[in-house]
């Protein structure tokens, strides 16, 4: 954790955390007994966190989903998996570092893991392109999915991207085609798949690794067709109305579960995933094991038929008397 950043609504929490820090330093330096003061401050901290995080507004959840200290794909690969061996390149143009993937073991079982990767600082973000893939990132992902299929291993994808990169090179090399192909290939993949939104689920760039048998979201992650800022700029003609856009688009994990678009919301520790990586990873791992366990029991044909049925049912419409 390179930077100690906190969000606006975390300020009160940060202040109490500072107080606790000071008290501990004081106690150590002067040999004072501060046990009871510490206990009361820690209770205060806990209550404050519970209160703050229970009542997060949608736009605050967007901020938590983008929190600079939130665990990223490579962190989960360390926290939940073992024996990760990264595989690079799309075999066509280059290696896109905003997508990482490779073999890893989940409780000893080999699985293919693919995820978007953000950077922690400016230097790493230049390498990771802020987690915004180019077409070659999606083509690398597809290559690894096909590898999982060849060796009949399950696929786990971790989604965390503001979106697919909108740039000249990306368009020249077929951003739309790369995403489209992944959607079609994932729909027909002959192995079980679980996709988890761990942070930002930014539109088609997220969905391009997100068509799966089970789709899960961490409690404070978000998933939407366009960023609240983008939506506000177009429909409200003002980017500053992002709060309204976040509410109207129903971007939170809870919203999406309610709309039956995802299968499960994975709880985060009080204070958000960034406050306790281990606990978050533990919950996520439990959920993955449970879903993969269920999917493993299904014959390939039934698995694919269920996946098609799941996606064919997406959407809501009504029937009127034809004119």
């Amino acid at each position, binding site marked *: 954790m390179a930077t100690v950043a906190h969000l606006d609504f975390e300020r009160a929490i940060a202040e109490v955390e500072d107080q606790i820090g000071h008290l501990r330093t004081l106690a150590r330096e002067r040999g004072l007994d501060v046990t009871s003061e510490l206990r009361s401050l820690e209770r205060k901290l806990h209550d404050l966190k519970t209160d703050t995080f229970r009542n997060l507004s949608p736009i605050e959840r967007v901020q938590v989903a983008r929190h600079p200290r939130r665990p990223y794909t490579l962190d989960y690969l360390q926290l939940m998996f073992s024996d990760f061996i990264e595989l690079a390149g799309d075999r066509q143009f280059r290696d896109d570092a905003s997508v990482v993937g490779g073999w890893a073991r989940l409780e000893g079982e080999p699985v293919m893991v693919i995820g978007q990767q953000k950077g922690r600082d400016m230097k790493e973000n230049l390498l990771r392109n802020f987690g915004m893939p180019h077409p070659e990132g999606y083509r690398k992902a597809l290559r690894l999915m096909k590898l999982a299929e060849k060796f009949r291993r399950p696929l786990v994808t971790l989604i965390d991207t503001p979106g*697919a*990169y*909108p*740039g*000249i090179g*990306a*368009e*020249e*090399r*077929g*951003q*739309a*085609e790369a*995403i*489209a*192909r992944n*959607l*079609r*290939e994932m*729909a*027909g993949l002959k192995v079980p798949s679980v996709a988890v939104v761990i942070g930002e689920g930014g*539109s*088609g760039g997220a*969905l*391009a690794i*997100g*068509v799966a048998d089970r789709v899960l979201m961490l409690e404070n992650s978000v*998933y*939407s*067709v*366009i960023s609240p800022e983008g*939506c506000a700029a*177009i*429909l*409200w*003609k003002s980017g500053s109305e992002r709060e*309204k*856009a976040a509410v*109207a*688009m*129903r*971007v939170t994990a809870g*919203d*999406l579960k309610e*709309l039956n*678009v995802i299968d499960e919301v994975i709880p985060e520790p009080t204070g958000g995933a960034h406050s306790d990586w281990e606990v978050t990873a533990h919950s996520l791992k439990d959920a993955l094991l449970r879903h993969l366990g269920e999917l493993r029991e299904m014959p390939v044909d039934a698995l694919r038929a269920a*996946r*098609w049925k799941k*996606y*064919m049912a*997406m*959407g*809501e*419409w*009504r*029937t*009127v*008397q*034809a*004119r």
Partner: protein
Amino acid sequence: MAWFRKPKTRLQAADRRDLPGDVWEKCPACGDILYREKLKENWNVCPTCAHHMRLPANGYVALLMDEGTFRERDRDLRSADPLKFVDLKAYKDRLAAAERKSAHGEAVITGEGKLDEIPVSIGVMDFAFIGGSMGSVVGEKLARAGLRALEKEQPLIIVSASGGARMMEGIFSLMQMAKTSAVLAQMDEAGLPYISILTDPTTGGVTASYAMLGDANLAEPGTLIGFAGPRVIEQTIKQELPEGFQRAEFLLEHGMLDRIVDRRSMKREVSRLLRHMLALPAPEDFALNVAPDAP
């Protein structure tokens, strides 16, 4: 979202006074004054410079389907406004306004018919309906068109024209990309042809799903095609885009399209392709269809 762009060339007020809009039209490319009836007979392609002007959705049905063979399906599907979405305007009011202006209840017409005697399932998007944006109804109608193709073992043809996702349906609009692609996965598996025809403009989620997944991707000349809209890219990279960027010719050059096809020979090209894919005899020469009255 390309549907917020203004057309590049607009008639000046002075021009408009001289041109009774119901009889004459000025070609935005070469400036020729065209007799509207003649233009319509030419499928809205300028007879002077071959510039392709927009053709309404039922124009494409008439262009591609053998006369009298088209049967529309699922015309009774409407958006359920699943999020009860309200921005500066209520989505349901936007829908009502779009429906009043449009000949159809949504941004796509689907149905069955014959193309040069080949039975096909077809979907044609309508850019005039909320920018051809893809919401639940567009996805469902196209998915059903795909399922009919699968059931009857027929080819599927989709004519795209879209500014992208229907933001007012939030995550449901995003999921239509997965839904339509899932149908195409089954078409692939069944070995059935799918022809994608891209018309101006095709951007966003439609490009990043079915529009790019044809067994042949065909586009009309000059069509704007992209994932991100040109304005979004300009804002991101903070520089102006090169001339011709994201036009059909650019995409052909970069390997994203099979062919650029003049609208007036589109039916013939599709017929020839399908006849190859289905191992049917090559088409006999046929005269061009006659354009119907625009709605």
